């Protein structure tokens, strides 16, 4: 195996009855980097993580983690990885401390060592005040942090984060992102699944887009965005009677047709100077706007563009 790759998967197939969750997935994650596995619900992201975490065997194909085959050497793989996310969870009826203590003991730490490790992790994740409370009473953000702490008890070299921020508010999401960046700085290899392009963009060195159990695109965030092309400009006129003229102004800089939805004008743009041009144009025509924003393509748009390009 290529020793610069921490995870290598080739041709993974997993079926559940008539449903094919994975349909020949290839992946390679370089040691010390973050791979973002991006896809909508039901794309096969979680199944891929479960195979790579030795929780389920693939029906075909093979995978190695740290050079160990996930089917033949599951125990060695488990010794290297930490798993956290939507399906691998902490025990809600135990306190934060007890959850970490249990895992420390299971990993072979002595009682005092497990206690030390629990305290250190709770402090690091800002959970010291909640250490004695049942995890079931934690907020969504705190739970996710405890989940992360639980997966780090054994100092894993590889961390699997399965949709670590789904359902979190923006502040908690940023906290989780900061934690992940810190881990990567310490040399941890991360496999991240997400439904959010933004999250993959923020964290991943490389993105693999999967849909219906197949890899439909691979590349750096920048190259994927380039492939998906346009960003979208959104403008909300301050006065309703200027809507048509604002639409015309947007149309002049847009790469496609300007569309009016309610009181909002949207249009795709590809020219990097489009926004500046639009501001000048609006100003020259005496048009006032309440809101003017340029946003990256949404996941839907990325998919449309990628699946469109592939078919």
């Amino acid at each position, binding site marked *: 195996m290529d020793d610069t790759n921490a995870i290598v998967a080739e041709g993974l197939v997993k079926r559940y009855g008539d449903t094919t969750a994975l349909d020949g997935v290839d992946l390679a994650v370089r040691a010390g980097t973050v791979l973002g596995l991006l896809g909508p619900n039901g794309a096969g992201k979680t199944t891929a993580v*479960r195979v790579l*975490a*030795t*929780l389920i065997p693939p029906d075909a194909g093979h995978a190695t983690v740290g050079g160990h085959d996930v089917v033949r050497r599951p*125990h*060695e793989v*488990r*010794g290297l*990885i*930490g*798993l956290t996310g*939507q*399906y*691998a*969870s*902490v*025990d*809600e*009826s*135990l*306190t934060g401390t*007890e959850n970490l203590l*249990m*895992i420390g*003991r*299971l*990993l*072979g730490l002595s009682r005092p060592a497990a206690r030390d490790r629990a305290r250190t992790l709770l402090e690091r994740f800002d959970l010291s005040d909640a250490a004695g409370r*049942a995890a079931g009473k934690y907020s969504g953000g705190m739970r996710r942090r405890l989940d992360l702490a*639980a*997966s780090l008890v*054994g100092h894993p070299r590889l961390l699997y984060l399965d949709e670590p921020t789904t359902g979190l508010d923006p502040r908690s999401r940023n906290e989780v992102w900061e934690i992940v960046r810190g881990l990567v700085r310490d040399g941890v290899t991360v496999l991240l699944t997400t439904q959010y392009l933004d999250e993959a963009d923020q964290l991943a060195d490389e993105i693999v887009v999967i849909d219906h159990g197949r890899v439909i695109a691979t590349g750096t965030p920048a190259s994927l965005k380039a492939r998906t092309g346009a960003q979208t400009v959104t403008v909300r006129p301050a006065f309703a009677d200027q809507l048509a003229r604002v639409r015309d102004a947007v149309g002049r800089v847009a790469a496609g047709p300007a569309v009016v939805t309610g009181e909002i004008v949207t249009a795709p743009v590809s020219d990097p100077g489009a926004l500046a041009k639009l501001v000048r144009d609006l100003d020259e025509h005496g048009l006032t706007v309440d809101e003017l924003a340029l946003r990256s393509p949404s996941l839907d748009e990325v998919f449309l563009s990628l699946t469109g390009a592939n078919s």
Partner: protein
Amino acid sequence: MTTMPLRNTATLAWRTLVQIKHNPFELIDFSVQPIMFLLLFTYVFGGAMAGSPAEYLTFALPGIIVQNLIFATMNTGIGLNTDISKGVFDRLRSLPISRFAPLAGRISADVIKQAWAIALLLGLGMVLGFRIETGPVAVLAAFGLLLVFAMSLSWLSVLVAMLASAPEKVQIFGFVVFFPITMASGAFVDPSTMPGWLEAFAEINPTTVLTDAVRGLLSGGPVAGPAIWSLVWAAGFLVVFAPLSVRAFRRRV
């Protein structure tokens, strides 16, 4: 990292027991319900069944203990199913620990809970007038027999847990199957008062043989026959349900 099956099991048993501290309802579940049954059976049926509550208690306490024990075996499955549906099991299985430690840990913890429930019922029964006519060795033997039986039967609960989609379904299964089986037995009445076909069922019912064995060990009387049959049933449950459970366990998790 090496596996330490016994230590892993002990840690996970600790985890199951420490949950009680945070979820007092669980304590109610396995303490208050048997107490309620004991009081109701003694004082509601006692007079009609045996002339007086105290008289009936002597007969029925072993039956109440056995019925509660059989119901409580379902807790193993309910707990396992909850762990699976909440994702705790995936976390445990992603760790380099002994593969069957999560199962063994829960079963060990449930045996401790069972011992507590037996002691509670026996203690309260004695407060209400039940008298142990034998010695400490016989009482210990009764505990041992009950716990061996419970451990074997809990494999059925594990099997149901692996097949059921939700913890509630495990509970419903337990009630629907165990309620009639434990009632159609010699636990609360003499089977000879039943219609012939039901009497025949009650006589071979594992509830009956286990209850008779416990009666013998606590109040005196024949022990060997019912105890051997109890162990035969326990062995039967183990031989049938343990392999099926392990197969279902491997398939599910």
